[in-house]
């Protein structure tokens, strides 16, 4: 079994290596046809077109060379255009590190890729995703025997380099962060990985894959492999099995399949479970030709659904079941945190200091998201163009794109997931997600959900706190015999699972008595209990 596990790990590693190494292989050859079509959509400047025509078309260049050339020509072109007496702003390309590569350079690099990979996409898929998935399943499958009889098996977690911020953990951290930076800002360097899933995209709705399809497909594959790990690790625990199955289902069906199918039927791409303010750009397109409102009845329904989801379904469900119904049963971010992130949950900080930071950050993001959306709605109703300056040289578009960059990309992606191996999973959910903040307020003040503490049974061992991904010091409540009512609790149920004495139970019940501060625990003298707990 140990051998099987190692073989699995090696196969998986080979898949990842091919996937990663492919970034550095292949060349680009921009044909006249590709060049003309790209230029007609992207560039007005004659200077740029002439120079690029000379330096790029027909040449065999690596993705890096091609990208650098385009950017340096764009810079020259901007300098030239700005030096004209009468500046034609339409000719300016405006080079920005976080925008130009993905919006301007990427389409050309994507269209002009040549080499082995573009010609053998199907095989390449099997060499990357295929090997990684099969190897991963073998490695985790072997745990069925290796972990021994069903039960809590956290043996060696703090002694292993991967799960205790060792070399492997730091390597994974670097890998995640670099991947997210490339994905969000430099997809022009991910062409071969993007091509690996192209046959699937073609098959699904006839379109060409892009970085977001790659991300979506990776997301589902990673979650599936790690869900199998969860099924094996928690095979004695129905709550974990059911929760993992449901969150995996919502990811694959609602975040991946349904949107792609909608597109195949010429309907808008829409994730029915993604609620504002997590879905921060829900209102951005209002008034635009491509907004949901202007896409027929289906679009109108989606728009209405989105609002109904945020205003009615979310708070009502949180009232009855706590925010766990979303965060650890439905949400994609939560889904990744609970599968890929599960091996890192013990790394979240439980200090009071982190709790303070957490409250400022997450509620800060909620305020930011709300103000930004208010501004978006204001300019829609006041019929102001989004690029128009409103005050201090800032336009609504500036606010939106700042949020998108800082929160939408850097916080939720690069930090939120990249830092799993350092700060524990759920970095985003704990410190940044505005929807989590919103639901947290409901959960804290108006909900039936609580984690019940079982009388005086707690022995303060601290397994619950250690394995709380949200950094809640569960023990500090349990050892006082107090129920855990915390806005940040996502109800993953692991505190209850790892408790060796059966002290914790997630449940929904009457609001009365939900919060039960105690001085003395059940089991001591009845008079003392009365004296101290009821004053």
């Amino acid at each position, binding site marked *: 079994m140990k051998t099987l596990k190692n073989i699995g790990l090696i196969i998986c590693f080979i898949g990842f290596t091919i996937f990663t190494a492919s970034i550095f292989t292949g060349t680009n050859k921009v044909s006249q046809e590709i060049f003309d079509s790209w230029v007609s959509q992207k560039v007005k400047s004659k200077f740029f077109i002439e120079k690029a025509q000379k330096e790029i078309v027909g040449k065999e260049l690596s993705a890096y060379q091609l990208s650098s050339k385009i950017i340096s020509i764009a810079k020259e072109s901007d300098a030239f255009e700005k030096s004209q007496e009468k500046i034609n702003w339409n000719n300016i390309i405006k080079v920005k590190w976080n925008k130009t590569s993905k919006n301007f350079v990427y389409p050309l690099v994507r269209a002009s890729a040549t080499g082995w990979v573009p010609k053998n996409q199907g095989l390449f898929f099997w060499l990357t995703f295929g090997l990684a998935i099969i190897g991963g399943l073998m490695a985790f499958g072997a745990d069925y025997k290796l972990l021994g009889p069903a*039960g809590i098996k956290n043996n060696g977690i703090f002694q292993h380099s991967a799960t205790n911020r060792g070399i492997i953990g730091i390597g994974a951290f670097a890998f995640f962060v670099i991947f997210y930076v490339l994905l969000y800002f430099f997809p022009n360097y991910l062409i071969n990985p993007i091509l690996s899933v192209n046959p699937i995209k073609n098959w699904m709705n006839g379109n060409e894959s892009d970085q977001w399809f790659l991300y979506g497909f990776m997301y589902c594959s990673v979650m599936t492999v790690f869900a199998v790990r969860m099924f094996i690790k928690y095979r004695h625990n129905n709550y974990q099995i059911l929760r993992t199955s449901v969150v995996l289902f919502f990811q694959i069906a609602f975040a991946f399949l349904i949107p792609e199918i909608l597109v195949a039927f010429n309907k808008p791409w829409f994730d029915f479970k993604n609620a504002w303010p997590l879905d921060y750009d829900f209102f951005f397109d209002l008034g635009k030709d491509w907004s949901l409102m202007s896409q027929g009845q289906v679009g109108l329904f989606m728009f209405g659904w989105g609002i109904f989801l945020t205003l009615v379904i979310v708070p009502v469900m949180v009232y009855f079941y706590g925010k766990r119904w979303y965060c650890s049963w439905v949400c994609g971010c939560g889904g990744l945190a609970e599968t890929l992130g599960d091996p890192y949950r013990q790394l979240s900080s439980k200090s009071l200091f982190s709790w303070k930071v957490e409250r400022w950050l997450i509620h800060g993001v909620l305020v930011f998201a709300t103000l930004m959306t208010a501004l978006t709605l204001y300019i829609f109703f006041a019929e102001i163009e989004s690029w128009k300056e409103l005050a201090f040289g800032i336009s609504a578009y500036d606010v939106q794109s700042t949020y998108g960059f800082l929160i939408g990309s850097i916080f939720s992606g690069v930090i939120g997931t990249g830092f799993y191996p350092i700060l524990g999973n759920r970095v985003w959910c704990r410190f940044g997600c505005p929807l989590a903040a919103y639901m947290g307020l409901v959960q804290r003040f108006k909900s039936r959900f609580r984690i019940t503490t079982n*009388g005086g*049974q707690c*022995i303060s061992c*601290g397994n619950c706190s250690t394995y709380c991904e949200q950094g809640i010091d569960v023990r500090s409540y349990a050892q006082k015999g107090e129920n855990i009512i915390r806005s940040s609790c996502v109800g993953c149920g692991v505190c209850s699972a790892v408790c*060796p004495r059966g002290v914790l139970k997630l449940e929904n019940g009457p609001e009365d008595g939900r919060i039960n501060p105690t001085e003395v625990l*059940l089991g001591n003298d009845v008079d003392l209990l009365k004296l101290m707990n009821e004053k």
Partner: protein
Amino acid sequence: MEHIVIIGNGISGVTVARHIRKLSDKKITIISSETEHFFSRTALMYVYMGHMKFENTKPYEDWFWDKNKIALKKALVKSIDTENKQLVLDDNDHFAYDKLVIATGSKPNKFGWPGQDLKGVIGMYHKQDLESLEKYAPNNKECKRAVIVGGGLIGIELAEMLHSRNIPVTFLVREDSFWNGVLPQEESEMINKEIIDNHIDLRLGVNLKEIKSDANGKVKSIVIAETGEEIACNVVGLTAGVSPNINFVKDSSIDTNRGVLVNRFLETNTKDVYAIGDCAEQKVAIDQRRSIEAVWYTGRMMGETLAQTICGKKTAYKPGHWFNSAKFIDIEYQTYGWVWAKPKENEARFFWKHKDGKKAIHVNFDKTTREFIGINTFGIRMRHDFFDKVLTEKKDIEYVLKNLANANFDPEFYKQYEQEIISKFNTENNTSIKAAKKSWSLIFNRS
């Protein structure tokens, strides 16, 4: 300002300190030679197993003590001079107190076995034991086999710990079935099986004769008294129970027996000296409890109670209904009320075991009045609240079984066995109990 000095920073000492702080401004010092800060002794096993870091075993962050003005002193108390109200420390310094709380806990028993002090012989109680274990049994290359002597809760925990690092374990148990002085035979057999299923070499009904040394004063092997069999090993764990850690009290005016003798108010015979937790011995045992209780929560409860007395509201220690819990490798155990290893005259028993062999309940009730006396539950979690109320209100067995769903504390979506349990009881007792519907108001209505 009155100076309260507490010897011992375990759960008892820390609880009394915290509660005194809540109630007063008294000066508080906690003295310990084991560690600088309070940690959870029950979690030491998880550090070795890699579930936790030692940091994670500390229930309070390090700033907590300063913030709450609880002074911590790392020192070993050598003796107590009650006449001058001062302690003599290991560096022969004197340390004055106004009121003294002895909360020094236990130490592992050693019964004078030959070789019991060799290198590689360890207990599993103190932080230092964890460090020794890490030294002598870091992996199965260094430690080819470990032998554990003594079949109690610490013994099985130590077996689980070593097993987690794939170190072969031989487990010597004096009784003819694991922990059968406490557990009825059915449960005891279930745990025997759990131990064996985890590939631990369980030897029942055997005693240790001697531990043999190699040339370097390290453990080489042990010999079993009954059979004379010699088992080669690198580590020997002595887990044959614990006894009060009170040697330093013996020469003082404070009365001791096995532990420091206290009355119901946790006062010793000497004015302004109290004892709580594992090291305290009740002169007259409370109800059916033992006079010395080495249990986490009784230490805590004594701390909660004594703080009242020290802060001017004299309060007797009156623990409520007995309860306890443990985990035997993968099988969780809880108990509420009393289920003796052997039924008493007036007692009837009902036992149910799931076919997977890992879940069971054993209910004890009065033959004639049908009053519920206690329950052992294995692999199914139950609500403390529920049984505490049942015991206080002296409900009968029928009530308990009828409302068993309300007692269930397993996570959501777990399979429930109330129907199966009730129908077995009905068949055996010619009754026709029907399960009542789960009632939130019953579950959450605190007494």
